[in-house]
């Protein structure tokens, strides 16, 4: 149905796609796999007419096509749901679906009834039930995604591209999304599914195309490969166990951070926990269970109703993140572009941002030489790959950007690090590096709180796990009790056992 052949794309003198093939059949879910920077997004942008390819052909139903803009691609039946949604937050689902393509009455006024009917039809086909009059901002992420999909279908998309659709969904939402995808597949829609979660690909996809560094590696049936085989295709080498071994923490290790009570909202549950020196404490739970808020409250970045914290046994109050910094707590935020990096800054400026005390000359001025040396040192410690410390961070890959934010805290000799989704949206190779780094840090005496939505990560990395549910800690598990079953059960039911 859709066929891309020998697609090449150059930006200036640099070729980023070196002749990529992709063929997607009607009624199949086709995974497009590759590490970050492999060329997946570029390829999809070519397919949508957002950028023009330099060479190669695109065929839809055997007919050669060339799109010079997104609208032409839409007209040919291509629909895309971007990773970052393109919905207008204050408009409702119907208004969003028909934005710029409104159905009008004879008098040129909006035919709201007709649009609503059409929207209902499409959503019914998808078997989803969402509010049509609330602004989409008040819908859940999954529901917003359904609106995006419905929007594409309202334009008669026969080829639907889903770019990392599950990145921010909870497991039950993912299930729902998969149900919708299967529904679409039955109707003969060709779906291109981009994801970093290999297990999802085995669950939902029929065939897989792998890209690496802009190169076409191959296409195969899902039934013909296994996890390791796929990873090998993606990175070009086998990654053995991606989680470093857990060294084990002495039970009497010093408690560097003791949270006696934290209550996010008045009337909500009150939790307490502690963090020992050299420990990785996992925060697991569903999206919205209060993991991130609890961590931010420690720093004074979230206004919790109550928060009593002891750092190194001394009671401390945090009014703003700068206080967290003063007491040695650093944060690697959830979203590196929106909360972590100043994207218009160089690596150097990002790393030194909160640590000018270290290289002040005559108390007022920045010692530029020392700043450069310290930055190089910090970059080396976390092995940031870049042209140099003066490269702008928006030219780096996701993994390297993440390392820049980490370097900022290493430069500052923070004792306690809060890593919120440290590996979100970065590729398999970089993930393994970050895991290794985290263990190196703990060996050096750092202590880490790691918030993660990826269960394997929580289980593979944490010495202990706090499982969150409904704004509080439902349970803390350690040692052999850290299994996906226990964590998931606590996260979804709050009780140790499903049956009980």
């Amino acid at each position: 149905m859709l066929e891309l052949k020998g697609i090449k794309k150059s930006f200036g003198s640099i070729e980023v796609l070196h002749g990529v093939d992709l063929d997607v059949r009607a009624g199949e879910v086709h995974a497009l796999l590759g590490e970050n920077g492999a060329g997946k997004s570029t390829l999809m942008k070519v397919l949508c007419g957002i950028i023009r390819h330099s060479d190669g052909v695109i065929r839809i139903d055997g007919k050669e096509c060339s799109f010079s803009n997104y609208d032409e691609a839409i007209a040919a039946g291509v629909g895309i749901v971007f990773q970052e949604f393109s919905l207008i937050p204050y408009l409702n689902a119907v208004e969003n679906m028909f934005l710029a393509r409104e159905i009008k009455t004879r008098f040129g006024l909006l035919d709201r009834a007709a649009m609503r009917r059409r929207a209902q039809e499409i959503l019914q086909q998808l078997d989803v039930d969402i509010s049509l009059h609330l602004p989409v901002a008040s819908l859940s992420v999954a529901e917003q995604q359904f609106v995006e999909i419905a929007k594409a279908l309202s334009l008669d998309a026969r080829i639907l591209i889903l770019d990392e659709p599950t990145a921010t969904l909870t497991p039950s939402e993912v299930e729902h999304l998969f149900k919708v995808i299967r529904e679409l597949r039955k109707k003969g829609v060709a779906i291109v599914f981009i994801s970093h979660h290999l297990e999802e690909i085995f669950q939902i996809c029929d065939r897989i195309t792998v890209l690496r560094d802009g190169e076409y590696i191959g296409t195969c049936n899902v039934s013909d490969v296994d996890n390791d085989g796929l990873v090998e295709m993606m990175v070009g080498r086998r990654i053995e166990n991606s989680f470093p071994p857990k060294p084990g923490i002495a039970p009497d290790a010093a408690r560097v951070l003791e949270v006696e009570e934290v209550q996010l909202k008045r009337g909500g549950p009150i939790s307490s926990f502690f963090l020992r020196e050299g420990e990785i404490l996992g925060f697991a739970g569903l999206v919205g269970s209060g993991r991130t808020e609890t961590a931010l409250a420690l720093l004074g970045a979230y206004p919790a109703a109550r928060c009593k914290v002891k750092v190194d046994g001394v009671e401390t109050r945090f009014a703003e993140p700068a206080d967290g910094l003063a007491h040695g707590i650093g944060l690697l935020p959830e979203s590196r572009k929106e909360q972590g990096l100043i994207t218009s800054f160089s690596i150097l400026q990002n790393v030194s941002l909160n640590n000018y005390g270290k290289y002040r000359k005559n108390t007022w001025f920045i010692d530029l030489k020392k700043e450069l040396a310290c930055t190089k040192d910090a970059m080396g410690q976390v092995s940031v790959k870049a042209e140099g410390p003066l490269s702008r961070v928006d030219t780096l890959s996701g993994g390297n950007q993440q390392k820049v934010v980490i370097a900022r805290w290493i430069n500052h000799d923070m004792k306690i690090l809060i890593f919120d989704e440290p590996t979100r949206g970065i590729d398999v190779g970089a993930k393994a590096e970050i895991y290794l780094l985290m263990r190196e840090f703990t060996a050096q005496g750092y202590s880490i709180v790691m918030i993660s939505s990826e269960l394997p990560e929580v289980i593979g990395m944490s010495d202990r796990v706090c499982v969150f549910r409904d704004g509080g800690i439902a349970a803390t598990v350690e040692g052999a009790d850290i299994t996906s079953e226990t964590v998931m059960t606590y996260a979804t039911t709050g009780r140790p056992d499903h049956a009980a």
Partner: protein
Amino acid sequence: MPHDANTAVAGKAGNGRTLKLGTILHSPLVLPLAGLIVVSILMGLASDNFFSVANIFNVLRQVSIVGILAVGMTFVILTGGIDLSVGAVMALSGTICAGLVVNMGMPGVVGLLAGLLVGVGFGLFNGALVAWGKMPAIIVTLATMGIARGLGLIYSGGYPISGLPSWMSWFGIGRLWDIPVPVILMFIVYAVAWVLLQRTPFGRYVYAIGGNETAARLSGVKTRRVKLAIYAISGLTSAFAAVVLTGRLMSGQPNAGVGFELDAIAAVVLGGTSIAGGRGLILGTLIGAVLLGILNNGLNLMGINPYLQDVIKGFIILLAIYIGREWR
């Protein structure tokens, strides 16, 4: 993976030379500077007097007040804010300075210091409302613009306050080594601002807040304090401009500086600073201010109808911003 990264680095290192040229061409100063040169040449062709030393000093002297206002404005705009109160604060500051000296018989130095205090006070007020009150800067400073203007008129009864000691004219029309004092003052303000922005942590925080305020705050920058400081700086430069203005007019003028906030914003934007914050250079603002001054001066020398001058200036600003937009 590490292997690939190495080759990528090597590949780029080979292009070192083109990269450097690219960096220069992409400096935010290129366009303002080009504009300055083009406009200067055009004015020079249109008027024989334009390139005389006397006229150049004349232009710079005329530019000095807006030029000084634009320094504070640059700090504010770099953080993504705006300060509409600068013209009114300048007028109030000058009026109070003159009032204290003329009507209350205080020494001139006290008057000048009081004027500076008024400026900083208003800046702190703006900054506190923006940073702690979490109100939009454009509304806050629109309101304080009205407050400052009104207070000045109340204090003076609406009339200029004249009769200042003659030494105060030195700030407005004096000369030092043959250079007009206002021009020297302006350059000093720019030099201090450059050091602050380029060589101190505070300067980095200003850019960081404009680039991504959330990230700056979460990494431990005391963003509210920095914002308070930048509005205070804007108030201070307004008061500083008032010193020059008072010296030039030898009186406190409650009605002075109407619309100067817009000229200051225009200078900042013509200088290549992004109105969204995070990007821009203080040197660009200087170029922008001089560019505006040359336009005023040149159009005057050509004897163009003053009403038409405003129209022409407006279109030139639009054109400049349009080209700048394409450039990025």
